[in-house]
C-alpha cells in the first residue's frame, strides 16, 4: 500500500503566525482511488493540499508523490490542480490562456494547443476560444478553469472544494468527467466539507478537524468500524409522542432527530424490531423504517462534534 500510494503524506506539520494549521498529519492516497479529504471549514484542508502541491513547505514531515522525491511543482505535468480560490487572467483570450497554463506545467506548446481545442469542443466552448475571458459568462469561465486543470491528461487530480462556487450544471458536468477519468485510472484527491457528495464519490476518506487527522481508511471500512446499528425512522403523525422512545437510553445511544425524520444509533444488543414496536405503540404512523448504514455525515458529526464546524479565532481565515 505504502509503495503504491500516489500521494504519500508523512507526519506534516505547518505552523503559521500564532497557530498550527496542520499537525502531524499522515495520509496515503492509493493509485486509482477517489479519495476525499473531509473536514469543516478551517480544518486545514487547503493547507494540506498546498503542501502536497509544494506551494507551501511543511515545517515538519514530508510529502512524496508517485513514489518519487520530486516536488509537486516538478511533477506538475502529471498533476491537475484546481485551487479553492478560482481565477483566470481576465484580459486573455481563452485559448491562449489554456495553452499558457498548460505550458507553465511543462506541456509542449503544440500538444497544449491541440488538447485545449479538444476540450473546448467537448464542453461546447469552441466558439469562444478567441474571446477574452471577461467576455464569458461565469458558468463558462468555470468550465475554462476546469479544462485548465485537466487538459494535459494528468495522472493525479487534486481538487480543492471542487463543488463550491460552481453552478449545479457545471457541478454535474465536472462530477461526470472526474468519474470518467477515475474509471480510466486517474487518481483523484479532493477536499470538501459536504459529506453527502463525498459519500457518493469516494472510495476512501480522511477526516480532519483542527489540523489533525480524526480517521482515515476505505469508506466501507470506516462505516463498519464507526457504524454501530443504525435505524432511520420517518413518521407522519404523533411525532411528539415518539420522542420518549428516542430518549430511552437502554435502546437508543444517539438520536439525530429532525421531528418527522430521525436517525438513531442503537445501543449494543438492542433490537431494531423493538424500536419499531415502541414507535407504533406510541401511536405514530410510520412512513419509513430502515435499518441503515450510518451516513458519513453522521460519522463526521459524531467524531468531530458540532463545535469543530467553527474555526478557531486566530487568523484562520487567511491561511486555512
Amino acid at each position, binding site marked *: 500500500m505504502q509503495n503504491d500510494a500516489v500521494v504519500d503524506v508523512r507526519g506534516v506539520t505547518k505552523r503559521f*503566525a500564532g497557530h498550527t494549521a496542520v499537525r502531524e498529519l499522515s495520509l496515503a492516497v492509493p493509485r486509482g482511488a477517489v479519495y476525499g479529504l473531509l473536514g469543516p471549514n478551517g480544518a486545514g484542508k487547503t493547507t494540506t493540499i*498546498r503542501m502536497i*502541491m*509544494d*506551494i*507551501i513547505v511543511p515545517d515538519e514531515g514530508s510529502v512524496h508523490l508517485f513514489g518519487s522525491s520530486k516536488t*509537486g*511543482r516538478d511533477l*506538475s505535468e502529471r*498533476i491537475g*490542480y484546481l*485551487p*479553492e*480560490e*478560482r*481565477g*483566470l*487572467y*481576465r*484580459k*486573455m483570450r481563452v485559448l*491562449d490562456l489554456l495553452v*499558457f*497554463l498548460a*505550458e*507553465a*506545467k*511543462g506541456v509542449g506548446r503544440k500538444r497544449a494547443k491541440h488538447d485545449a481545442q479538444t476540450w473546448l469542443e467537448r464542453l461546447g466552448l469552441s466558439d469562444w476560444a478567441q474571446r477574452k475571458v471577461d467576455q464569458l459568462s461565469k458558468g463558462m469561465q468555470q468550465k475554462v478553469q476546469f479544462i*485548465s486543470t485537466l487538459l494535459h491528461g494528468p495522472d493525479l487530480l487534486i481538487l480543492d472544494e471542487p463543488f463550491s462556487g460552481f453552478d449545479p450544471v457545471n457541478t454535474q458536468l465536472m462530477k461526470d468527467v472526474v468519474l470518467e477519468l477515475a474509471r480510466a485510472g486517474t487518481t483523484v484527491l479532493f477536499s470538501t466539507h459536504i459529506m453527502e457528495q463525498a459519500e457518493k464519490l469516494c472510495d476512501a476518506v480522511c477526516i480532519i478537524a483542527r489540523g489533525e487527522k480524526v480517521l482515515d481508511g476505505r469508506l466501507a471500512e470506516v462505516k463498519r468500524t464507526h457504524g454501530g446499528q443504525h435505524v432511520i425512522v420517518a413518521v407522519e403523525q404523533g411525532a411528539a409522542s415518539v420522542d420518549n422512545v428516542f430518549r430511552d437510553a437502554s435502546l437508543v445511544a444517539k438520536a439525530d432527530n429532525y421531528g418527522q425524520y430521525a436517525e438513531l444509533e442503537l445501543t449494543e444488543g438492542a433490537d431494531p424490531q423493538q424500536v419499531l414496536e415502541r414507535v407504533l405503540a406510541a401511536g405514530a404512523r410510520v412512513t419509513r423504517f430502515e435499518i441503515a448504514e450510518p451516513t458519513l455525515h453522521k460519522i463526521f458529526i459524531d467524531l468531530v462534534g458540532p463545535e469543530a464546524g467553527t474555526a478557531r479565532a486566530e*487568523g484562520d*481565515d*487567511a491561511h486555512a
Partner: protein
Amino acid sequence: MHKIWVVIRREFLEKVRTKWFIISTVLGPLMMAGFVVISILVAGGGVATRVITVVDMSGSDFGEQVTRILNAPEQWNVRRLRVGEGGLGRVTDSLTAVVGREDLDGYLIVTDEAVETGQLEYRGSNVSSLTDMEVLQRLLQQGVLIARLDRVGVDPQLVSEAQIPVRMRTVNIRDGRETDESAESVFLLAYAMWIALYVAILLYGLQVMGSVVEEKTTRVVEVLMSSLKPFQLLAGKVIGVGAVGLFQLLIWGLAGWVIIMRRDVLLEAFGVEATTAQAIPLPDVSMATAIIFLTYFLLGYFLYAAMFAAVAAMSNSEAEARQAQTPVVMLFVIPSMLMFTVLQQPTGSIAVAFSLIPFTAPIAMPVRWAGAAVPLYELAASIAFLVAALCAVTWVAARIYRVGILMYGKRPGLKELVRWVRAG
C-alpha cells in the same frame, strides 16, 4: 529555464496587444515631432520671413544705406518709403493700420538726427521677438557707424571691408578629443535622456506592479504557484515587461531618428525653410551613448521593478498597491527633481554623488555622460554599485514576493516583512 521563457512570452505578447501599448507607441513619435517643430518655431522665431518698411525722413542717403544693410539677412524684405517733412503722421497712421496684416511686420523711422544721437524708432508686431530685435539692433549699429565714419571722411569701402560679422561656434570636448557637438546639442541630448529614462523606468516599473496585483486579485497566482516557482514567475514577468519596454524604446528611437534626419520635410510642412531647419543644432547620439542609455535603463528598470513587485505582493488590491507604492515612487521621483543640477553641472559634486548612488544612478549617470566626459573608473564604480544593489534588492524583493502573493488579509507591517524575508 523553459518555464521562465513561457512566462516572458505571455507577458510580452499580452502587453504588446493592449490598447495602452499601441496608443503610447504611436503617440510617442507624434509628441517628439511636435516637440521638434514647436521648439524650432519658438527658438527660430526670427528666422521666419520679415517684411519691414523703412520710413525715410532723412535728407541724405542715410535712409538708403540703412535699407541696404537691413536687406542683408536672407529672410528680411525691407522696402524704403520716402516721406517729406510733415507727412510722417499720415504715413505712420496708415502703416500702423496694416501692421501684422497685409504682409507687413513693422516699420522703422529713420531721420538724419539718428546719426548724431543714435536713436531710432521701430514699431511692429514682432517687437517681442528677442532674435528679431537683436538682429535689428546689430544692423542699425552697423548702419549708424558707417554713416558717422563717412561723415569724418573715412572711405565707406574701407569701412565695409573692416567690418565682418562675428559668430562664435561652441565645441564640446570629451575624453581629450573635440567632438562636433555644440553646447545646445549637448544640453538637448542630456535633457532628452533624463526625460526618457525617468518616464520609461517609472512607467515599466509600475507595469510590473500592475501585473503582480492582477495575478493576486484574480487569484490566478494560486494555479501558477502549483507549476512555477515564485522566482520563475517573478523573473519571467520582470524580463517580459522589460522586453516590452525595450521594444517600445526601440520603436521610439527609430522614429526619433527618422524625425531628426528628415526634419526638413517635417518643418517644411509647417512653413519653416529647409536651410533653417538644418541649422538648428540637434544632438548626435554615439554608439557608446546609446549603450550607456540602454544599460542604465535596464539596470534601473530591474531595480525598481523588483521593488514594485514586492509592493504589489504585499497588497490585496490595486488601490492598496497604489498606496503602498508611495515610498518607492518617492525614492525615485524626489532625486529626479534635483536632476536639473546634474544637467547644469555634470561635473559637480552632486552629479558625481548621484551617479554613484544606485537608486539615482540610473538617471544621473546617463545624464552626466551626455553632458560631460565621465572618468572610466567612475562609470565602472557606478555600474558595480548598481549591480550590487540590484542583487540585494532582488533577493529581498523575491522573498517578500514569495510569501506575499499567497497572503490575503491585512497588509504586513515592517516587523512582519522582516519575518517574511527571514523565512524565505
